């Protein structure tokens, strides 16, 4: 029973993600992503990690995606769905890499060489999670908070417009500013 549910959810997650990438309309894309995240949340629940499942729903599907939705709706970028789809050169590396990931996972599963050292699944209470988090990984928690702070500072800095030049027109044509090697004869 669990197995069947898992495979259904996994399929939903993968298809949702694929659609989120291929869909040109941003609002639709985000909704597909939310679907996918929900599926993943339930997978976590199946793995007896209710806390992670809840976080997945509250944080990712809830807070972040809603924020994305608001931003997209507020910016109102016209009709991006009428734009060109990216060239194959641009998305093929990503596809290749996901294939690599899948291939290596399959290898790991098939090759049965390695017994997974992770303890068998059992429900972990919140108390235990917190204990682990703050005793074993205290420095990591603090680091993440610091990182978020400075990511915020950086984003604010880069996003702030210079007072002297209000409203720079967005450069329309994607131009190659630098990079290409000079091919002098």
């Amino acid at each position, binding site marked *: 029973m669990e197995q069947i549910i898992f495979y259904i959810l996994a399929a939903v997650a993968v298809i949702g993600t694929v659609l989120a990438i291929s869909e040109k309309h941003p609002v639709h894309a985000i909704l597909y992503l939310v679907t996918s995240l929900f599926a993943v949340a339930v997978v976590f629940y199946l793995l007896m990690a209710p806390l992670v499942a809840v976080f997945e729903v509250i944080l990712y599907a809830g807070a972040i995606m809603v924020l994305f939705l608001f931003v997209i709706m507020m910016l109102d970028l016209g009709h991006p769905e009428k734009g060109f789809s990216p060239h194959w050169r641009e998305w093929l590396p990503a596809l*290749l*890499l996901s294939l690599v990931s899948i291939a290596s996972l399959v290898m790991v599963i098939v090759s049965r060489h390695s017994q997974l050292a992770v303890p068998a699944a059992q429900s972990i209470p919140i108390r235990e999670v917190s204990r682990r988090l703050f005793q074993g990984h205290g420095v990591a928690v603090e680091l993440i908070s610091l990182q978020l702070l400075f990511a915020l500072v950086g984003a604010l800095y880069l996003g702030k417009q210079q007072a002297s030049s209000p409203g720079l027109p967005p450069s329309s044509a994607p131009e*190659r500013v630098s*990079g290409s*090697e000079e*091919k002098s*004869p």
Partner: protein
Amino acid sequence: MFDNVWLIPLFPLLGFLINGLLGKKIKNETVIGGIGAFAVLCSFAVSCMTILKLLSLPGEERLANVKVFTWMTCGNFNADIAFLIDPLSCVMIMIVTGVGFLIHIYSIGYMHGEEGFYRFFAYLNLFMFSMLLLVLGNNLLLMFVGWEGVGLCSYLLIGYYFHKKSAGDAGKKAFVMNRVGDFGFLLGAFTLYWFMGHNFNVWTIQFTELGKNAHLLPTGGVVTVITLCFFLGATGKSAQIPLYTWLPDAMEGPTPVSALIHAATMVTAGVYMIGRMNFLFIRSPETLMVIAVIGACTALFAATIGTAQNDIKRVLAYSTVSQLGYMFLAMGSGAFAAGIFHLMTHAFFKACLFLGSGAVIHSMHHALHHVHSHDDAQDMRNMGGLKSKMPLTFLTFLLATIAIAGIPGFSGFFSKDEILWQAFANPHHGQLNYLLWGMGAVAAGLTAFYMFRLVFMTFFGECRITPKAKDHLHESPMVIVIPLIVLAGLSVVGGYIGIPKLLGDLFGGIPNYFEHYLEPVFRLSEEYMAEHAAHGVAHHSVALEWGLMGTSVVIALIGIGIAFALYVVNTSIPAKFTATFPALHRAVYNKWYIDELYDYVFVNPCKALGRFLWKGFDVVVVDGVVNGVAKVVMSFGGIIRYMQSGFVYDYSWSMAFGVVVILGYYLFK
């Protein structure tokens, strides 16, 4: 015991740093020159203390390795910053710091008002530092650092007047010739290190250690290759055939530089190096013969060119090449002490001669400048009659000339005679000895001739510049004259510490102090050579030695006599001679067309090769490789169009490619 020996190179380094960094700000010439000279004076003082300490020890204990710190260490390889104190290095530091100090003093007066005064003193101090490192270094690597350092300073100072094209060209020429030599040095050092380590498990580059284990080495064979490599290095640095042509061109530098670097110290580095590694050279009779022959040939060959030059500094330059030839002749004959002795006396009289010529040029330059004449201030044909104008310069110059000519009683006589006798009497080269001696003796005669020709043309006869300019000729300031007097004094008396046994016996058994002093360094080698002599130790009679000595003196006197006859008594003869044998004169005057030969044989093909490398290699290969890499990747299934296109997704391609290949290889292998 010698704990403070590291101060000797340190002082000039400090002087270099102060003048180099702050000189532009200081501006005051007295302060800059004072700092430069004082730094060398301090080194000289420490050197004196060192040699006194050394002399207070018994002969067998006169050897110390003073380690300052470890430079590099890795497995078997160990290189220290460490100094070797023994009689040989002590005599060298005395010459370098002593003569160097006098030349620094002289430079304060000579370089007065030159642009970049501070630069000059900074380079000069840097040179002193490198030279002291070269002579004090206790291992091959440190010696090589000094070896390269003096070379660098030499180019910088040859090209000191860098706005003059000839100066820049001369610097480049010296650079290239020295590179050839340095390549030999490095090749020799690597081969020696590897050979000793690989075959005898003696992984060391330290001279004392190498010397201790030298008995393991075979005679000839590999040792011949190694020593010939080292000797190639020596010919580059010490201007011997075939790499001598840079030295006369190096006269483009300021005269104190010619005196210090291209006469007294740097060019003798090759001789010193052979002396330092005598334990190696004695194990290859072939190399010794090559050294002796090259030395004798250079001595004779350069002397012939010297007879026809009109530029006062060029005459001295060829004379330097020739005298260095004598030193190599001594080294090649196994008479190491005699070679070093000549190195020392030569440093005295040649420095004096160069500085004297500098004083003359300085004075001429000012006089010609006053009357806005564009005549060459260095051309002896413009000089003459300076005796009365510059009496002190004349006197010191004359004393040094007598010394170099080998007149008995002066320093050059003792050292040169010792070399000629050793060349004749050594047991290594068999019949060749007579030829070597003959070449040396003829060269001695030529030396006496061209040196007195120089003296007569410069100081005697009528002054050949305009009378108006003549009035502006005057004696140099004391800061220039005093070093001349000191060096002239040394040229006269410097030889008395090394009186040959023959003469010493005559005057009541005065020993040869100098040879005795160097004995701890060379004794083992001399014993080895006596055992392995190819032709057995011949016992020559005292009469023969007297005879040879007399002959060389007579030859020198004949040389002087001819010079006197040609340039004082009947000055029309040289012109007639030139007219009678125009081809010969032209050949000698043009230095036997060696430069042209080198241009034809080496330089032009090299240029062609360079052009080929530039047109062919650079454009076709380098560009080809760069473009080719791009092309290969481009054609790689047409996946990646441009490697470095500037597009992020192209870059991610490269990364993806890397990950796929790495994972693919390891997981499926």
